[in-house]
């Protein structure tokens, strides 16, 4: 009984409030131990997050709110902050107190929000962060005086060093047992009276509103028109309320802007506090950060640095990931062989499911893991350094030209990882039309799921050449692919913002965090999460789709096709036997084929011939690898190789005399039989594939995809990828493993290079590869993104419009790319 009462009395909730990028999320993690993304970037939290911690016998729920610069309640995330403070969010408990997180190096600006929060009168503690940054700039904050001014305790906290967290917990515990006191600022009398009057009107409407309004809300309503709160009250109070509101506003403003009246009063008081509580010992000159920023955020130099940095990132992805990719490809080849060895010889269907469906599909995708990891390694390092905020600043300038603000840049930048958090991140955009435009543009950014498609096509069809002597062509094409989506998004944004989603550009306030050394743990976590997510996708949805595609490609199995090809095999073997018999007869009259094979002199000559052929092939392959990029050197090496071969052949003729001639005939017949049987195997696989359910469906859609340079197999793989685009790699892996039976050893890239169209010409050319990449760059093949768009816009209209617009654009883009590249000889 006692225990139950004790538990009930000692369960509290506090809410963390602060500006973006003041270390709120890190503090949340330090207090609760919860795993949460910490990024050196404003706006990392767009939803309230919950965690729990204990102090002595108190269980404390901690609510992490979106970072905000004020409680102006113009955007949805600012409204979340107010609702959470007032305990009006269904998903989070009503807070018993507030932890106000303030950045010591920018106290003036942080206290603007701080004064607004303290006016709510909840028990509060100030957590003062970035004290070391402030000290490095010569700013010393007297916490005792600051505490006296604000009327709440102030605790210095340094999360990375683990300092102050326990003291903060004990202070929270202490203040929660005392009632809070609302902060009162010296606003002009007219302003105060208007707030009180409006508060009275709101209280009268409380039944219709469905909640009890507060005085700080009345102040927000007076100053900030057009936010979610204003909409709610207008619904309850109708036109009469708007008339009263206009009267109060006119009275309070006294000829000036209300926002200005509020800002003057707040900043006036903050300045007075700062004179008491803050000492600035060093003149605020240009710091190293300022000097670096002058270059990195410069219109010309900054843009140049951005292009060079990103270019280097994409170059490195190719240069460094290749050996690891080859190793994974080799491992899957070995795995395929080993697993095939375990399965019974006569279980052809099961072997095919495992080798072509599972290993061909999943293995084909996992090969790209190193490139994904390298891309995120670089981005995580750049972000941790603080560079990405500078890039956002640069882009803000450019985006304003297309009617978008820097607020749109953050969600769009997120979309390069995944469009889903990007679409969700648009909640920070207060203007509805700008928000919808940004939601619409997010899927255009090349997300990480597109990377395997690009690298597969580039690895297979773009030659390993250098441009300008130092730039790899493959890395350059990859960099260009990332721009395709951006270039398509620009006119789309222009059309939307100048047309149906017209609105004014709102100013965007963004903080430039100080440059910091990248934190290895943070980077390791990013890599673990991204890599883990990719592997999980390969092992779940990609595996499932690969198995379904395999089944659709295997069934129905036609006995007629099997029989017809078996007859062709028998005919080929009979032809081989006849060739052998003719060779035997030509060498010694009356000799049969089997007698020729058993003749010791011929067998010795045959063994030497085989060895010579193998050595010659190895030399040719070596020359190709070594001199492939230099035509003249390759021709020279090939000439030398040919001469060596002729000389060895002459030597064999001397050694084996007459026996060499039938041995050469036998070898040629053997090779002819092998090639013939392989061709029959391929023909049979192709015939079964064409007869399968997938093949039949593919033939229906083939006329639509032929102009893009695709055959039915690529078309079906693209269609199978509409729910999730990365599925295409697994699907191609399955289709081409099953369809091209002799290309297993070279992996998927090799299989694509060797794939043949019905007329025997190469199926994939550079033009086809480019066409596939452009299609994937522009198409909205992600059901999860469309679902989140529906949720965020509360309508199917936007996801439907996005899907049809992007699919049409992708088709036209791929069509144009193929036709132009094909005409240019690609």
């Amino acid at each position, binding site marked *: 009984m006692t225990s139950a009462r004790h538990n009930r009395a000692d369960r509290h909730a506090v809410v963390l409030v602060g500006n973006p990028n003041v270390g709120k999320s890190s503090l949340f993690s330090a207090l609760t131990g919860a795993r949460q993304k910490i990024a050196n970037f404003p706006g990392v939290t767009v939803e309230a997050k919950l965690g729990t911690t204990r102090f002595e016998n108190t269980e404390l729920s901690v609510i992490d709110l979106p970072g905000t610069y004020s409680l102006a309640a113009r955007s949805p995330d600012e409204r979340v902050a107010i609702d959470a403070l007032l305990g009006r969010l269904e998903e989070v408990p009503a807070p018993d107190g507030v932890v106000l997180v303030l950045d010591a190096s920018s106290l003036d600006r942080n206290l603007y929000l701080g004064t607004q929060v303290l006016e709510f009168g909840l028990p509060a503690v100030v957590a003062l962060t970035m004290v070391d940054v402030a000290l490095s700039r010569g700013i010393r904050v007297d916490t005792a005086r600051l505490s006296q001014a604000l009327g709440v305790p102030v605790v210095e906290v340094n999360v990375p060093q683990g300092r102050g967290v326990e003291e903060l917990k004990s202070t929270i515990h202490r203040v929660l047992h005392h009632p809070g006191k609302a902060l009162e600022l010296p606003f002009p009398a007219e302003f105060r009276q208007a707030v009180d009057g409006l508060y009275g009107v709101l209280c009268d409407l409380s039944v219709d509103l469905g909640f009890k309004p507060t005085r700080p809300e009345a102040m927000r309503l007076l100053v900030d028109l057009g936010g979610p709160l204003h909409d709610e009250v207008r619904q309850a109070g109708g036109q009469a309320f708007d008339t009263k509101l206009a009267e109060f506003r006119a009275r309070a403003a006294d000829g000036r802007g209300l926002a200005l009246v509020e800002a003057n009063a707040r900043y006036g008081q903050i300045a007075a506090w700062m004179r008491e509580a803050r000492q600035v010992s060093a003149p605020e000159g240009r710091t190293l950060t300022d000097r670096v920023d002058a270059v990195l955020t410069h219109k010309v130099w900054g843009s140049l640095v951005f292009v060079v940095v990103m270019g280097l990132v994409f170059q490195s992805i190719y240069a460094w990931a290749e050996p690891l990719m080859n190793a994974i490809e080799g491992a899957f080849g070995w795995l395929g062989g080993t697993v095939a060895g375990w399965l019974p010889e006569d279980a052809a269907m099961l072997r095919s499911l495992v080798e072509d469906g599972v290993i061909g599909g999943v293995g084909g995708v996992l090969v790209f893991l190193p490139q994904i990891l390298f891309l995120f390694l670089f981005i995580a390092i750049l972000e941790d350094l603080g560079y990405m905020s500078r890039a956002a600043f640069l882009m803000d300038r450019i985006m304003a030209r297309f009617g978008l603000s820097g607020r749109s840049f953050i969600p769009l930048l997120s979309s390069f990882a995944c469009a889903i958090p990007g679409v*969700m991140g648009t909640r920070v955009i207060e203007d509805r039309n700008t928000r919808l435009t940004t939601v619409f543009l997010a899927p255009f950014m090349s997300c990480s799921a597109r990377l395997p498609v690009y690298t597969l096509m580039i690895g297979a069809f773009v030659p390993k050449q250098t441009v300008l002597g130092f730039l790899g062509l493959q890395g350059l094409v990859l960099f260009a692919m990332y721009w395709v989506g951006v270039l398509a998004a620009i006119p789309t944004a222009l059309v939307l913002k100048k047309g149906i989603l017209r609105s004014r550009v709102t100013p965007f306030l963004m903080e430039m965090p100080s440059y910091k050394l990248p934190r290895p743990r943070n980077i390791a976590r990013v890599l673990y999460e991204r890599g883990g997510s990719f592997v999980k996708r390969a092992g779940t949805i990609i595996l499932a789709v690969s198995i379904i595609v395999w089944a659709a490609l295997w069934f129905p199995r036609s006995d007629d096709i099997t029989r017809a090809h078996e007859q062709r095999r028998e005919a080929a073997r009979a032809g081989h036997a006849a060739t052998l018999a003719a060779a035997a007869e030509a060498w010694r009259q009356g000799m049969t084929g089997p007698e020729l094979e058993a003749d010791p002199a011929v067998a010795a000559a045959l063994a030497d011939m085989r060895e010579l052929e193998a050595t010659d092939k190895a030399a040719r392959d070596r020359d190709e690898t070594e001199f492939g990029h230099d035509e003249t050197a390759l021709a020279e090496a090939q000439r030398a190789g040919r001469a060596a071969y002729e000389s060895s052949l002459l030597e064999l003729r001397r050694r084996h005399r007459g026996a060499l001639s039938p041995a050469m005939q036998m070898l040629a017949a053997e090779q002819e039989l092998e090639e013939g049987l392989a061709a029959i195997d391929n023909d049979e696989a192709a015939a079964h594939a064409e007869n399968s359910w997938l093949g039949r469906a593919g033939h229906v859609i083939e006329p639509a995809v032929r102009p893009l340079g695709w055959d039915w197999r690529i078309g079906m793989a693209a269609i199978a990828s509409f729910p999730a685009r990365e599925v295409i790699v697994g699907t191609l892996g399955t289709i081409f493993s099953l369809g091209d039976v002799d290309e297993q050893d070279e992996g998927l890239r090799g299989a694509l290079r060797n794939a043949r169209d019905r007329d025997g010409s190469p199926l994939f050319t550079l033009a086809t590869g480019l066409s596939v990449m452009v299609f994937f760059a522009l198409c909205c093949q992600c059901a999860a993104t469309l679902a989140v768009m529906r949720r965020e816009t509360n309508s199917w209209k936007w996801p439907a419009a996005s899907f049809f617009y992007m699919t049409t654009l992708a088709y036209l883009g791929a069509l144009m790319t193929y036709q132009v590249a094909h005409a240019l000889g690609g």
Partner: protein
Amino acid sequence: MELAVVMVAVGIALAFVGWRVFATLRVARGAGCGGCGSCKPGPTAAGS
């Protein structure tokens, strides 16, 4: 026996894809994330 094993594998794959379609539609109608792992915020992600 061989056919049975293949059928079970294909059945599980179809059920999994069906479950994902259902979960995606729930998200579209406003439900929270089902934890499928499709979306993990990247280093530049603004949100969870």
